[in-house]
């Protein structure tokens, strides 16, 4: 569990990035910080592994104030995945994944073995292990980044716009992979994005931020969609433009779901066969997401 206690961050140039922010991020759940640029979402994320220290307030992880912990040690226990993967260009894929376990003193051979297993976990072929990051596609690099983040089997995984730089098709695929992984591993995931659809897809708890790190609304995707607290949130999620108000029209060929602007959003299908419908994805989130909930959780470490 991660707790923010009235955290404020003012940068030396005077910018107020985060203003009196308090929140509990429950364990084994995904919390998504979503907001426009300048909303302090990345700053909030980076305060969890002390890449940024708060100006005032404190952050507790499982009851321990992280301000009292040594930053390097703290970071080695927290998975971190960033945009553009942030892989070391001069090291092979396998060595990138094995980096942090080796920093923690794991023998090279064991670290490499575990790294290979992690490539399986994130859905990468083992033959890619000896390549350099520049020889991989953007999506593959991002998977390696996730594998590196998971390498020390951390309880917490920080993800800073990890899918922001890949094309929409690969992004959708990586999102589904993350949902699958999360079902298997049950990490406490903190995810930053500016894409509200991504936030609703991945988040158990979604935090909508406005400029200056102020919370506009916290809640499950369903709560936020059903009851946007104010104009800002309604605009942000697209409710004000009618994007979220769907109704069914019968076109003869079948039931078509249409939004207020008249744009066709999809078709109405039975819940039983709705596995690939985007409209159903938020519904499936209501199901259990904890560790062991999945029937195919055999790969969890």
């Amino acid at each position, binding site marked *: 569990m991660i707790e923010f206690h009235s955290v404020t961050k003012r940068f030396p140039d005077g910018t107020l990035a985060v203003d009196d922010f308090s929140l509990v991020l429950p364990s084994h759940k995904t919390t998504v910080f979503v907001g426009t640029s300048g909303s302090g979402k990345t700053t909030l994320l980076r305060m969890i592994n002390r890449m940024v220290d708060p100006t005032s307030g404190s952050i507790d992880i499982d009851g321990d104030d992280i301000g009292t912990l040594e930053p*390097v040690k703290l970071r080695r226990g927290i998975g971190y995945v960033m945009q553009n993967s*942030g892989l070391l260009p001069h090291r092979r894929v396998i060595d990138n994944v094995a980096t942090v376990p080796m*920093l923690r003193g794991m023998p090279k051979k064991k670290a490499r073995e575990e790294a290979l297993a992690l490539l399986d976990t994130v859905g990468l072929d083992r033959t890619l292990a000896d390549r350099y990051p*520049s020889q991989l596609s953007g999506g593959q690099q991002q998977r390696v980044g996730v594998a590196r983040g998971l390498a020390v089997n951390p309880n917490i995984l920080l993800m800073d716009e990890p899918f922001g730089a890949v094309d929409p098709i690969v992004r959708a695929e990586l999102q589904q992979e993350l949902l699958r992984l999360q079902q298997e591993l049950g990490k406490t995931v903190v995810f930053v994005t500016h894409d509200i659809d991504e936030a609703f897809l991945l988040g158990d708890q979604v935090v909508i931020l406005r400029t200056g790190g102020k919370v506009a609304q916290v809640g499950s995707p369903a709560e936020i969609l059903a009851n946007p607290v104010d104009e800002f949130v309604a605009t942000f999620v697209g409710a004000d433009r009618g994007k979220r108000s769907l109704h069914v029209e019968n076109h003869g060929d079948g039931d078509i779901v249409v939004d207020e602007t008249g744009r066709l959003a999809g078709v109405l299908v039975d819940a039983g066969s709705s596995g690939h419908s985007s409209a159903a994805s938020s519904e499936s989130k209501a199901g259990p997401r904890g560790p062991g909930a999945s029937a195919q959780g055999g*790969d969890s470490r």
Partner: protein
Amino acid sequence: MTFLLETLAWLVDPANWVGSGGIPTRLAQHLLFTLVTLVVASVIAVPIGFLIGHTGRGRGLAVATSGAFRAIPTLGLLTLVALWVGIGLNAPYVALTILAIPPILAGAYTGFEAIDRKIVDAARAVGMSEAQIVLRVEVPLGLPLLIGGIRSAALQVVATATLAAYIADFGLGRYLFAGLRTRDYGEMLGGSILVILLAIVLEGAFALVQKLVVPRGVTAGLPTDIRDGSSRSRPVMEPTIEEGNSHVHST
């Protein structure tokens, strides 16, 4: 035309290839002097350059100081130091070390600065200590530019090291000063040619080193490198696994 003939005659005269004043000895002296100067200058400049590059602080000061150093006329400095420490090799060592520091310093910190900040940030975020960031990320990635700096310093030092003979019986410069005094232009030109050849050899050697220290992952992935990559290690170059079917392996 006579100059060239005289030069050629001087260069092939067996008498000039033996003894303590012979070409091999002076060539060795000259080379050793250059290398020692580069080592001393590197010991001073590289740590400072790394510190500037890593912290991003003190760059303005370094640029200003380097600029000032570069503007110092080496012959004047040499004379000044010689008046202070006396005749011998100490004065040329000091003067040429000062000449060599600015390019090496610039190579060291620009090497670090040229690294994508996101890579350094990620290294820190996954838990590398500052020393580990420097040694395992910044040094390997910044090395080619540092070697470039040393290469440029080497060229300046090997040419300017002729001045060492101004106050000591040392190096290839001796032929220039001796030839100038006796108006033996063949000897002068011969000495110059030797310095030029040594400079070219050093330049080639450093160019090679600079190429060799580029980390493989940095050049890998460029289209031309694809074939090189497969010959180096077995499984590297299988066709790209498509995103779509890659998660088959996970179940």
